[in-house]
């Protein structure tokens, strides 16, 4: 199936897209020519990092894929309003983090309805934010390692989980994470440190086993 560059009336895309173009150049091509090939280059450029982040935050491959698709779709619709005053990358990840958070909220509300639990304290709520409902197919696809990681991630409050994922999965600089999350660099560092310590202790057995 032809995914991009489909010929449509008045929108024929004949020029090949140079994949070395900057984000901003690609954005311009989408804005000015509605160039789907350019948009595809942009999507491909970010999809892996974005998936890693979304998966780490929402804890399911299926949900992460949906969040990603939704995010890229909305981005396409609103791209013509983007003036390039902020970095596309920071902008994109900020939106993605917010989407993931919304996804988590939906899940935990659902989980609460099903479990018929009483209202929780803030702390309980924070630690339960990561509870997700799994479909049978996902359950089958879960590896042992994946389960351990998901369990460990669930134990982290949302803020810690976010900065931890941005750092460990996407390798972002502290400064960039601070800009994206609107935290101070010091707070980002502290959150990462606490998250690493917790993750390390929860995953200790696995890390020990894989040492040799």
């Amino acid at each position: 199936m032809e995914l991009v560059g489909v010929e449509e009336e008045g929108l024929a895309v004949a020029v090949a897209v140079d994949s070395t173009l900057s984000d901003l150049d690609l954005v311009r091509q989408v804005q000015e020519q509605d160039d789907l090939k350019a948009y595809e280059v942009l999507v491909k450029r970010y999809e892996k990092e974005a998936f890693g982040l979304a998966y780490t935050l929402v804890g399911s491959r299926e949900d992460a894929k949906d969040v990603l698709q939704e995010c890229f779709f909305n981005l396409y619709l609103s791209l013509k309003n983007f003036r390039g005053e902020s970095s596309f990358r920071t902008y994109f990840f900020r939106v993605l983090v917010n989407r993931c958070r919304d996804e988590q909220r939906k899940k935990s509300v659902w989980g609460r309805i099903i479990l018929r639990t009483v209202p929780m304290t803030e702390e309980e709520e924070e630690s339960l934010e990561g509870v997700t409902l799994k479909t049978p197919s996902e359950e089958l696809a879960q590896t042992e390692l994946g389960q351990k990681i998901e369990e460990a991630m669930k134990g982290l409050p949302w803020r810690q989980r976010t900065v931890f994922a941005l750092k460990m999965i996407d390798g972002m600089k502290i400064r960039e994470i601070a800009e994206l999350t609107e935290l101070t660099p010091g707070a980002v560092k502290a959150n990462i440190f606490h998250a690493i310590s917790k993750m390390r202790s929860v995953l200790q057995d696995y890390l020990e086993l894989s040492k040799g």
Partner: protein
Amino acid sequence: MSCETIEKSLIGYLDQELDREEETVVRDHLTQCASCSQRLKEVEQLRSVLLQDASASDSLFEEMRRTLFERIRDSRPSREMVLPVRRRSWAPLWVPVTLSLMLLIGVWIVPGRYQEFAMKRDLTALAKLEEGATSLYPEGVESLEEESAAVDEYLMLAQMEGEASSDDLEEDLELLNALGEGDDLSEEELEEIEEEIASLDEEALS
């Protein structure tokens, strides 16, 4: 320097984002401290385990892109529709009021302690919008374009977060553009805007 301080810098050391001085301190410490060296290995190992788990097959991405581009192509005809520009006399008030209400709804109707972070951002955006509206006054008409750029950025964010339908936003943008093309506002229109903004201010602050 204490091991705990070093530990906090290990991830920065791995990602080579420490300043030169800090990096030297950490490197020197690592040569002498077995426990911190072990920690460093663990952090590296933790990352590789996480990355391995968070990766996905090409087929997942292909499937995601297939759905995505199908949706994008389906969305195109409606996006190409030309939106009519509203009556000018109504437009000036309509723009800031609608946008501000949209924001206020986003800020105040959301229940509980949902996202302080989002609320803070919305309030900042509200402030920006109000600046945008202020520039509609005669002395500020020239700067309208600049202000509307800020508003556009916000609109894009709002749209991406589903706070408004894209049609609403299309219309808002059309109106902002129409205003930017040198339309004059009457005294009454300016007064109306001023009053509306003042009442929104009060509401936002209370």
